[in-house]
C-alpha cells in the first residue's frame, strides 16, 4: 500500500503496520466486517494530491469550542490525526491560519470547488430569536450561513450536543431560541454525534466511514451512529456489578465512593445515556467520568441539562412536589366533610324514625 498519506506517516515515524492496525480497530469499533478495516486504510492512503482530498467545512455556531478542543486533544500524538491528513479541512475558525475576509474567501472557494461533494460539520446550536441576531459571523446570522453552506453539502455532521439537539443554549428558558441542525435542515443526510464534548474516536470513525464508503454509518432513532451509541453507559459500566449487588456510594467521600461502588444514588444518568465512554474512555483510554468518581451527566442525550438535576438519582422526583401537601389537606378536609354529612344523614334518619306499635298495626 502506497500513497501520499503513507509517505507522510513514515516521515512522522508511523509505520504502515500501525496505520493498518488503527484502521482495523476503527472498523471493529464500528462493528464493520474485518475487510472494512483494509478498505478504510486504502481509501485514506490512496487520497492523492492535497488539492483533491475530500473537502470538509466546519461551521461553529452557538458553541464553546469544547468539541474542537476534544478533537485536537486527541490529535497529537495519537493516530486520530490520520483522518485529518486524509481530508482537506477547508474552513475551521479555531484551527485555520486565515482570519476575517481571507477565511470567508476560503469558505466560499471550498464551497464552489466542491459543490455537492463536501462534508459539512456543524458544532453549536443555531439561535432563531431576534432573527438570529444572537450569533453572527461575517455579518450573517448562523441561520443564513447554515442554510447557504448546507445547500451544497453531501452530508452534514452535527458535532456535539448543541448542534445535534440544541444542547446547553437550548436549556430552559432558552433565551436565544436555540435549535439543532436537524430542526432547520430537512433535505440532507444528517448524522448526530452528541456529547459535551463528543468522544474523538466517534468523530474520526464517522469521518473514516464517510471517506471509505461515501455514506454515513447506520444510525439510531436519534440520528446517532449505532456503533457508538448502541448501548447505555450503565450496561457497559465496570461498576455495574455493584449496582446489581445493591452497593452504592451515598456521598462522594464515603467508604462506598472509595471502594468504587455504583454512583446511581449520586445521580448517575448512565442507565438512560447512550454513548461509548464506558468502553472507549477518554484521553487515549486513560479514564472516563465514572472511573474518576463522578456519575454520568447524560450529556449525549437530548435536553440533558433539563433532566431533573445532575445529582438526583433517576428514581427520585425530578422536581420538588408542589401539590402534595395541599392535596393532603384537601383530602383530609373532604374526608371530614363527608363524615359530617354521613353523621348528619344518620341522625336525620334517627329523628325521622317513627315507632310502630301494635295498635298501629291493628288499625
Amino acid at each position: 500500500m502506497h500513497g501520499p498519506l503513507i509517505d507522510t506517516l513514515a516521515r512522522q515515524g508511523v509505520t504502515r503496520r500501525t496505520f493498518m492496525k488503527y484502521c482495523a480497530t476503527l472498523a471493529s469499533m464500528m462493528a464493520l466486517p474485518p475487510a472494512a478495516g483494509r478498505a478504510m486504510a486504502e481509501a485514506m492512503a490512496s487520497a492523492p494530491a492535497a488539492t483533491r482530498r475530500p473537502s470538509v467545512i466546519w461551521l461553529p455556531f452557538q458553541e464553546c469550542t469544547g468539541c474542537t478542543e476534544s478533537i485536537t486533544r486527541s490529535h497529537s500524538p495519537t493516530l486520530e490525526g490520520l483522518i485529518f491528513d486524509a481530508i482537506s479541512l477547508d474552513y475551521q475558525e479555531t484551527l485555520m491560519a486565515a482570519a476575517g475576509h481571507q477565511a470567508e474567501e476560503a469558505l466560499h472557494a471550498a464551497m464552489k470547488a466542491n459543490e455537492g461533494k463536501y462534508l459539512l460539520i456543524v458544532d453549536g446550536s443555531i439561535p432563531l430569536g431576534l432573527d438570529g441576531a444572537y450569533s453572527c459571523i461575517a455579518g450573517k446570522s448562523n441561520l443564513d450561513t447554515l442554510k447557504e453552506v448546507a445547500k451544497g453539502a453531501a452530508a452534514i455532521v452535527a458535532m456535539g450536543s448543541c448542534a445535534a439537539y440544541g444542547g446547553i443554549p437550548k436549556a430552559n428558558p432558552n433565551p436565544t431560541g436555540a435549535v439543532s441542525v436537524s430542526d432547520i435542515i430537512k433535505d440532507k443526510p444528517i448524522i448526530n454525534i452528541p456529547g459535551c464534548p463528543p468522544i474523538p474516536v466517534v468523530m474520526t470513525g464517522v469521518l473514516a466511514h464517510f471517506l471509505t464508503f461515501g455514506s454515513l454509518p447506520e444510525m439510531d432513532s436519534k440520528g446517532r451512529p449505532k456503533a457508538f451509541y448502541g448501548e447505555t453507559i450503565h450496561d457497559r459500566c465496570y461498576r455495574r456489578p455493584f449496582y446489581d449487588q445493591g452497593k452504592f456510594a451515598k456521598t462522594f467521600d464515603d467508604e462506598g465512593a472509595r471502594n468504587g461502588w455504583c454512583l446511581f444514588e449520586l445521580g448517575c444518568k448512565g442507565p438512560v445515556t447512550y454513548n461509548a465512554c464506558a468502553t472507549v474512555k477518554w484521553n487515549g483510554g486513560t479514564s472516563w467520568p465514572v472511573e474518576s468518581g463522578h456519575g454520568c451527566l447524560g450529556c449525549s442525550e437530548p435536553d440533558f441539562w433539563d433532566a431533573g438535576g445532575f445529582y438526583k438519582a433517576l428514581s427520585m422526583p425530578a422536581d420538588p412536589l408542589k401539590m402534595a401537601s395541599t392535596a393532603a389537606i384537601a383530602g383530609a378536609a373532604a374526608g371530614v366533610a363527608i363524615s359530617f354529612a354521613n353523621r348528619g344523614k344518620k341522625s336525620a334518619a334517627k329523628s325521622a324514625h317513627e315507632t310502630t306499635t301494635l295498635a298501629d298495626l291493628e288499625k
Partner: protein
Amino acid sequence: MNDMQFLTWVRGTGLDIALSIFVLGVLWRLFEIYSLGRKPDLTAPRHAAGASGLHTIFRRTLPAEGMLKRAPVSIIGGTAFHIGLAIVVFLFAPHILLIKNLTGLSWPGLPSQFIDLVAVVTMAAMVVVLVDRINKPVKRYLSTFGDWFAWTLTFLPVLTGWMAVQHLLLPYTTMLAIHILTVELLLVFLPFTKLFHAFTAFGSRWYIGKINGHKGVAV
C-alpha cells in the same frame, strides 16, 4: 416530546399529580370509612381464647381449614403475588431511594438479579390467578369491571419495570418512563378501586374480629 422529556415529565409533573391524587384519595377515604363507626354493643362481652381483632388479623392471613385443598390456585397464587409485589416494590434499591426521598425512611435492598427473579414469579402468579378467574364460571360470574381493571393496574407496573430492566421491546429510557407512568396510574386509581384494600384489609379484619370476639367467637 423526546424520550428524555417524557421521562423527566413522569419523574416531575406527572409524579406530583399522581401522588397528590393518591394522598388526597387515601386520606379522604380513610376519614370517610373510619368515621362511619358502629353502634356500641351494650351486651356483656363473652371472652373466648383467640377471639379478638388482633387474632383475626393474623388468622386471616393464613388459609382457613380445608381452603388450601378447595382453592389452591387462589391461595398459593394470591399469596405468592402479594409477597412478590411487596419484595419488588419495597426491596429494589431504586424504589427504596424514591421512598427515602419522599418520606425520609430507608432500609437495605436486595440484589437486582433476585428482584428480577421475584418479578418473574410475581407475574407468573398473577397470570395464573387471572386464568383461574376466567376459567372458573363462578369466579367469572362474580367478577366485575373493577376486578379486571385492578388486575391490569397492578400487573402493568411489574411488567414494564421488568421489561425496562431486561431491555425488551423499547429503549430503556422510554420503557422506564412508561413504567413510572403505569405506577402513577396505579397511584391515581388505588384509592378509588378495590385496590384500596391495601389500606383497609387489616382494619376490616380488626372490626370483624372485634365484633365476633365480643360474642366470644374466634374466627
